[in-house]
């Protein structure tokens, strides 16, 4: 290479690595701010401060922000890569990688201590409640790949009949420990077998990690039946009615991946929902803090309830089945510990309760925010 080209080549490289910080600083000055880079001189050079500085530099980079979606789009269009946290399944189905990892990966070694041991946390919570005369029923919620493994990979067809989530071991441990635990895997398995015959709407959304409006309604019915059978709940006197409706919803996996071409490839999904109304007042279903039943859960309980279209989620449908309004605390991705922490600082919500229904999505058994910590109940 001639000297002239060496110069050009070196110049292009240097221009690239110089333009990014200089133009970033220029832009920040133009916006009336001190360039982020100078922040490194304003803090004690400790590990934590250096990491924060580095993260801020990356997050504020206009180039990274501008280029990232283009590259992600390119990778999706050329190689069908939806990004690190999403997996592209069959028939336009998308999966959340941690949902799949939970099923595939080795379980970490059994731990007898919190916050790694869900059985310990759940049995302790059950005991805490029982000391106050409150029943507990636990609902481990199957993740989408547990119910629709065949939509992730064709290979799962071969295992259709013996596909078993490791969560069923947890369910069995909890049942052995005397904690009332519902096995929704059986329910979904039999529903899917019927599904083949009836070709009804899927029980999970294709672009989302959550269940469909149809599944919400069915599972609410199944849970209500169990509660009534156990004698832990009585049918109330409030009459509810249901209004069927369709809405278009952009799945959380699409939103999370934030790949522009993914959004173009997958138009918003049509979801069939059933909004619950008070038959007498014609008002949409609303929680009542005075209810004898408290629901603790994650985004599976939030879906359609406080989200669009509202009052069409599991809570509203369970209330309809039991003919009584309920109390709920919902914490997205935080049903392992955070939701109990929220309960712990809100003593009003546990007052007068006879039953707690605790739902968490199965991947949180391993990946739940803050693990499975011991949390005291609120003072009486």
């Amino acid at each position, binding site marked *: 290479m001639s000297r002239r080209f060496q110069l050009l080549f070196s110049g292009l490289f240097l221009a690239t690595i110089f333009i990014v910080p200089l133009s970033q600083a220029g832009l920040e000055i133009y916006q009336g701010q001190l360039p*982020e880079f100078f922040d490194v001189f304003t803090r004690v050079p400790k590990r934590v401060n250096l990491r*924060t500085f580095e993260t801020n530099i990356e997050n504020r980079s206009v180039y990274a922000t501008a280029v990232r979606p283009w590259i992600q789009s390119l990778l999706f269009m050329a190689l069908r890569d939806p990004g690190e946290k999403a997996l592209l399944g069959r028939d336009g189905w998308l999966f959340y990688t941690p949902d799949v990892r939970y099923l595939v990966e080795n379980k970490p070694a059994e731990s007898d201590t919190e916050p790694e041991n869900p059985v310990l946390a759940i049995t302790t919570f059950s005991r805490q409640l029982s000391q106050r005369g409150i029943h507990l029923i636990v609902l481990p919620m199957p993740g989408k790949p547990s119910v629709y493994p065949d939509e992730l990979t064709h290979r799962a067809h071969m295992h259709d009949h013996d596909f078993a989530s490791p969560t069923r071991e947890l369910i069995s441990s909890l049942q052995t420990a005397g904690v009332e635990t519902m096995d929704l895997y059986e329910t979904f398995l039999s529903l899917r077998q019927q599904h083949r015959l009836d070709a009804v709407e899927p029980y999970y959304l294709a672009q989302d990690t959550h269940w469909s409006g149809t599944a919400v309604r069915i599972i609410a019915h199944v849970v209500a039946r169990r509660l009534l059978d156990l004698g832990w709940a009585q049918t109330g006197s409030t009459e509810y009615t249901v209004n069927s409706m369709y809405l278009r919803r952009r799945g959380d996996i699409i939103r999370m991946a934030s790949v522009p071409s993914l959004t173009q490839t997958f138009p918003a999904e049509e979801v069939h929902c059933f909004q619950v109304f008070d038959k007498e007042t014609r008002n949409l279903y609303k929680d009542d803090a005075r209810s004898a039943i408290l629901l603790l859960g994650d985004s599976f309980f939030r879906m359609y309830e406080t989200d669009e279209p509202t009052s069409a989620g599991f809570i509203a449908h369970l209330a309809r089945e039991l003919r009584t309004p309920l109390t709920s605390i919902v914490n997205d991705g*935080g049903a392992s510990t955070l939701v109990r*922490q*929220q309960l712990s600082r809100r003593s009003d919500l546990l007052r007068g309760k006879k039953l707690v229904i605790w739902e968490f999505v199965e991947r949180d058994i391993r990946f739940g925010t803050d693990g499975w910590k011991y949390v*005291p109940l609120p003072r009486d």
Partner: protein
Amino acid sequence: MKQQGTDHEVTTLGTIEISARLLEIPEPFPPNDLYNYAYILKYHVIKVHRGNVDGSDIFVAQYNPLKPRSSARDEFSGKIGGSLEAFRVGDVHRMALEASVDDYWMGGIIDMYFKQAGIRYWAVWTNLESK
């Protein structure tokens, strides 16, 4: 002259307006991939400009704290925003608040201070007042 950290939103939104120093970030902020959390932060109140707050050290829920306030707003959060780029312990923020978070945010809340009583305020607008 316009005071550092003030703008139309911070002086008009919410029912409370304060200047407060961020005392600590108890644990690294969790990832914000599938869900966006509200994260409870502890502040020392320097001055109350509007409304009342409960004590000198208060707890404030900041939605999706990994993002600059100007881009933290999404379809679930309702109106939030501000000029603050990043949360750093020791910085003074000028904030418009609502009480309490339970009435304004129905999603995930990470509250490392859950054993401590007191209102959890909801940060509607957060500007950087001083470093």
